[in-house]
């Protein structure tokens, strides 16, 4: 029986052609629409390109401009703030909620559902909801603030250049907490209850139990959450774009800068350089992740 199967793999049998097509057809489209464009973006970043006429090579000009562009610095800085925000509040909040909900608790489903509900909403939907929520004149937040402060307190939120990014981040965090919570909840389910039981019998207090047993056991989840936070923080676009009415100003992030330059200002060459910068920043994480993935692959 075994030889019969082997012979099937040799020569140009029908099966062999099938298998080649199975790999080649999807790969062809993947190369054209995903890897090809990635390579093209890198190439275009060394050119002057308006998106219409053919690109002309201009060496490192785009990158020199990048290094001196205050808007680029602003965008990069804002992405880092975004990242910092994601690595603090949603991480701590999501973890705390997961630990709380992991106990035998009533209405657990309701709590979970409410908190990760934002995950299914489109970002432009979230953006509009929060725009309405934070509207300086009529929004719920300012209506309450006006009532509490006798009309003295009236922040402009999105209209205030210094508050815009923070306001957007509130919406982003609102969405992210549920994601982190779900990941940690799944991680907690995977922990053998006996391990915690043992520590508990040994007299470990609640906090000690968490710090010395639960949290270290959650390490794989924490790594995933970190990677996701980084990627999501770097990809940020929709919320900024919609909430600022396509003029991010002080709330500019790398993705919006790139989009504005490439699509609106016909500076596709420079836009490509911004995209490559963004790519390089995330590359470190991609490689770390890949190595990890390949290692588990070898174990299979």
């Amino acid at each position, binding site marked *: 029986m075994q030889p019969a*199967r082997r012979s*099937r793999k040799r020569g140009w049998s*029908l*099966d062999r052609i099938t298998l080649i097509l*199975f*790999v080649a*057809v*999807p*790969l062809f489209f*993947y190369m*054209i*629409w*995903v890897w090809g*464009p*990635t390579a*093209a*973006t890198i190439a275009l970043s060394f050119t002057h390109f308006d998106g219409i006429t053919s690109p002309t090579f201009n060496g490192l000009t785009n990158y020199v401009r990048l290094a001196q562009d205050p808007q680029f610095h602003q965008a990069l800085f804002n992405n880092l703030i975004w990242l910092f925000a994601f690595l603090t509040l949603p991480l701590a909040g999501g973890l705390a*909620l997961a630990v*709380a909900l*992991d106990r*035998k*608790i*009533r*209405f657990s*489903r*309701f*709590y979970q559902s409410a*908190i990760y*509900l*934002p995950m*299914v909403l*489109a970002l*432009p*939907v979230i953006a*509009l*909801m929060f725009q*309405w*929520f934070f509207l300086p004149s*009529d929004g*719920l937040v300012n*209506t309450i603030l006006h009532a509490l402060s006798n009309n003295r307190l009236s922040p402009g939120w999105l209209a205030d250049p210094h508050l815009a990014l923070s306001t957007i981040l509130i919406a982003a965090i609102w969405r992210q907490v*549920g994601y982190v919570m779900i990941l940690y*909840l799944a991680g907690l389910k995977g922990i053998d*209850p006996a391990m915690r*039981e043992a520590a508990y019998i040994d007299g470990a207090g609640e906090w000690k139990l968490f710090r010395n047993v639960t949290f270290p056991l959650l390490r794989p989840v924490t790594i*995933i959450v970190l990677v996701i936070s980084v*990627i999501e923080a770097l*990809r940020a*676009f*929709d919320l900024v774009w919609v909430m600022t009415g396509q003029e991010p100003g002080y709330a500019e992030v790398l993705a919006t800068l790139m*989009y504005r330059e*490439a699509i609106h200002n016909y500076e*596709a060459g420079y*836009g490509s350089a911004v*995209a490559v910068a963004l790519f390089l920043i995330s590359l470190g994480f991609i490689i770390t*992740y*890949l190595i990890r*993935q*390949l290692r588990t692959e070898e174990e*299979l």
Partner: protein
Amino acid sequence: MARDTISAAPGGIAAPASQPTTTASQPVTGAVTGVTTRRRKRASIGRIALYTILTITALVWLIPLVTSLYTAIRTFGDTTQYGPWSFPPHSFTLANFSQAWVQGDFSQYFLNTFLVVIPSIVLMLLGSSMTAYVLARHEFRGRKFLYVTYVAGMLLPYQVLIIPVYWLSNQLNIYNTPLALIAIFTTFEFGFCTFVLYGFMRGIPKELTDAAFVDGASAFQVWWRIILPLCMPALATLATLEFTWKWNDYLWPITLISDSRWFTVTAGLGQLQGEFVNNWNEITAGALLVAIPTLIIYVALQRYFIGGLLVGSNK
């Protein structure tokens, strides 16, 4: 003879139990044993505090959605005259929704989005399951390289693709048509889907496919009649998750479509904001309309959605 064996197989064998998707899609409900029981007696004050904090958090989390709904069901006149946060409301109307649906062209946007999302998901799942099948079941030169191509591809930030894809769709004369969106929606998540399906297929016992081969089944038959039916849980999870993602996607529609005739829902939502400048009753109604299909999925297919998120967490 061979046919019988193959079609009998999926019914007789349950999907592999040790797979990430199946375990992940179990409803997440608390079950920690003895520890909690003892703890409960000890600290009932702590529990009251816990419930209070959780309830407040959950309610706060619902505020943006509830306030939008509250605005959407009131008339413009009511909110202007009595203020948008007056309670109880002086009006109740569904006119804002029908206004967005008809005047705001949302009926068209819904149609367009389905037209783009459904074919993309079918093509994407077909393509990635073919690749995953070959990767999981056959040894060949360049196998590892192929795997890396897809796994690395799923981590690419989409910004790296925008400019050339925009250019490419122009060159292929599909810019501003649903085809452009179908092309990118189909291929962009190939990596992720291949990765998930590959993992799932590795869990399907090899004896199953080997037996079918011995009985004379072709590679195509094995894929179509054994592998695909057994992968149903994974395919359902991916379809649920990808539907939500593609339905919600905003960047590609605004990049590849400039004619509002072909707008998807999210792009149309931006349009709505421009049309009804300060009529937030209309705008929130439009936003909620866009959210309805994903909310239905969230309620009806929550298990699959969460399962997908957990597998997708590797993304």
